[in-house]
């Protein structure tokens, strides 16, 4: 039985040339931005040594820039920004909670294990 009451969601993304132009210019802007961020990261990484006092700041900058890059890729390239709010939340929220928890555990335990090893060798 042919169903005429179902919504074909696959067609929802369709748009005309004028809208296409708009989308393309956004894509090019994001490309330039992502490249710039990568160049900045390499520049910082090559010019500031890990032994420097600034290293903690640099680390935080790296992580923030990475999250910014990731945000642009997910929201613009993967179109998650254009999806429904519920879909966005279903994908992002559990991920953030779980990964933040894992990072906390890894760093906390990592430090503890590192300390034990150091005392063992002394």
């Amino acid at each position, binding site marked *: 039985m042919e169903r005429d009451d179902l919504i074909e969601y696959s067609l929802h993304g369709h748009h*005309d040339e004028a809208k296409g132009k708009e989308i*393309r210019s956004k*894509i090019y802007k994001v490309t330039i931005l992502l490249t710039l961020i990568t160049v900045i990261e390499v520049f910082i990484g*090559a010019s500031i040594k*890990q032994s420097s006092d600034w290293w903690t700041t640099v680390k935080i900058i790296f992580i923030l820039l990475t999250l910014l890059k990731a945000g642009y890729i997910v929201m613009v390239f993967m179109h998650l920004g254009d*999806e429904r709010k519920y*879909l966005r939340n*279903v994908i992002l929220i559990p991920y953030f909670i779980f990964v933040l928890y*894992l990072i906390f555990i*890894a760093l906390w335990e990592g430090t503890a294990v590192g300390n034990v090893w150091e005392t063992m060798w002394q």
Partner: protein
Amino acid sequence: MAGHSAQLDAKTLWGGKESPFQTSYGKLMMWFFLVSDALTFSGLLIAYGFTRHNAQDAWPIGEETFNSMPFLGHGYPLLYVALMTFILIVSSVTMVLAVEAGHRMDRKGVTKWMIATVIGGFFFLGSQAWEWSHFIHGSEFGKIELSDGSVAIVKGHFGEINSFTVLEAGKKHKVGAVIKEDLMHQFQHAAEKGHLEAGKIHLADGSVAKINKAKDHDMKLIIKKSGKLYQVGGKEITGKKAEQLYYESLYAGEKNRVIYGANMKQNEYGPQQYAQFFFFITGFHGFHVFSGVVINILILLGVLSGTYHKRGHYEMVEKTGLYWHFVDLVWVFVFTFFYLL
């Protein structure tokens, strides 16, 4: 219950009419897969973070390990990895352009951008092959265990070996013979086995030869494991002192004082786990890129044969696009946590 089948309309099956996410089944499933795959990669990177965090200063630094460029040699910290990142970002852009062309039912545009994406994927895989090969073969100096028990990585310009002049005959070579082939390989092999002594090399056939080698320049020792005299995090040893310490160990005639390159057991960059994580994380990501390229090619064939055009939408391109962007996304994190930090 015959006769009731006529009632199987929208009201009985799905009262809400619109699905809550307003996406097609395929796209939703692709997102679910990507979320689970992202968790796998998070697990790997966090395990890396854990190991690195408890190894502290002994862990290698990205800019020390990855500082070579093809055809250009050493002294370009992180540039090559940045280039790889750029290649992957560009191929992600061509993919999103293919998706956009698909939304306009522009078959020519989709074809063009899909081909560009596949080419970008191959470029990335090629770069990664070069990087692995470089990582496995290692540097000319290797990592050296100094006489006080500390272990150092060595930076600088290695003076070229020009020839070996045979001093004592062996099974193959006669006295006075000049060997000009396969020098570096024989030298490193002998160094690992402890078959070197003050300017002389014991070759595999039992002969002893003099090493004719140009002088090294700007040698620098960076301690990665503390010994009695030199500590991790202490000052770098440079100049004459570095050369003296390096060759003292190299010519000590002991096995395993020097390590070149990397394998699963040991590597010249740092702790054993470092190379294992490198192989596993970049390898697992590389395998994702490889499968992505294969899937992209299959979709490209579908585009060329007009399958999606007949279907009325290019959603298959969008779905593979999601996977391809995800691969780029993972690389962004690998780049930061493995190479930069």
